């Protein structure tokens, strides 16, 4: 079994600034994947970034980057140069290699970008 914890219900950031969302997880598996998904008011989950646990290098996708600390079971998301369109719920999720692709989600963090 695995659990994913997001301890920040809401984060506010000004346009062009940087915000960091925290996520911790607990799994007994050695091989797993970690994800950040964005859910705007339209409700459609959109993949932001993905990290394979066996890779030490932190994943980066344009303005989005992660800080993956495997020993601490921590997986934070940094949004740089925040834009108004980044306003959404952000979910951290974990997936083990033997789970058919089933995702375990955290409770989410609402990000509000203000002008």
């Amino acid at each position: 079994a695995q659990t994913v914890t997001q301890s920040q219900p809401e984060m506010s950031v000004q346009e062009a600034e940087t915000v960091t969302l925290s996520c911790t997880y607990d799994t007994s598996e050695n091989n797993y994947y970690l994800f950040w998904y964005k859910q705007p008011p339209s409700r459609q989950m959109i993949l932001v970034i993905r990290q394979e646990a066996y890779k030490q290098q932190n994943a980066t996708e344009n303005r989005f980057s992660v800080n993956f600390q495997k020993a601490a079971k921590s997986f934070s998301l940094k949004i740089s140069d925040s834009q108004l369109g980044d306003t959404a719920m952000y979910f951290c999720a974990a997936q083990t290699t033997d789970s058919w692709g089933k995702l375990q989600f955290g409770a989410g963090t609402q990000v509000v970008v203000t002008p």
Partner: protein
Amino acid sequence: GAGVSQSPRYKVAKRGQDVALRCDPISGHVSLFWYQQALGQGPEFLTYFQNEAQLDKSGLPSDRFFAERPEGSVSTLKIQRTQQEDSAVYLCASSSLGGHTEAFFGQGTRLTVV
């Protein structure tokens, strides 16, 4: 299709009524998942199909929930004798292979039981 399509987008059901929620995955996607998302929470896994085979239904909350994918494409999630606690957004996702390729989500069906 271009993306995962779910219908209806909104459904209001009277308590005790049966409902059927439809998911049309991306053409050719082998894997299909259903998730339940209660208000203010993250999605919770319900069930998984690989083609027409339901390989995991461990997340279905009760025997009132039933899912099928008879031809390995469109899937239907049926809830019998709906209860207020069934009120949630039901999300469908599909991916091209079982395992760890990217899952694409639909916009969900918001079910409200009154």
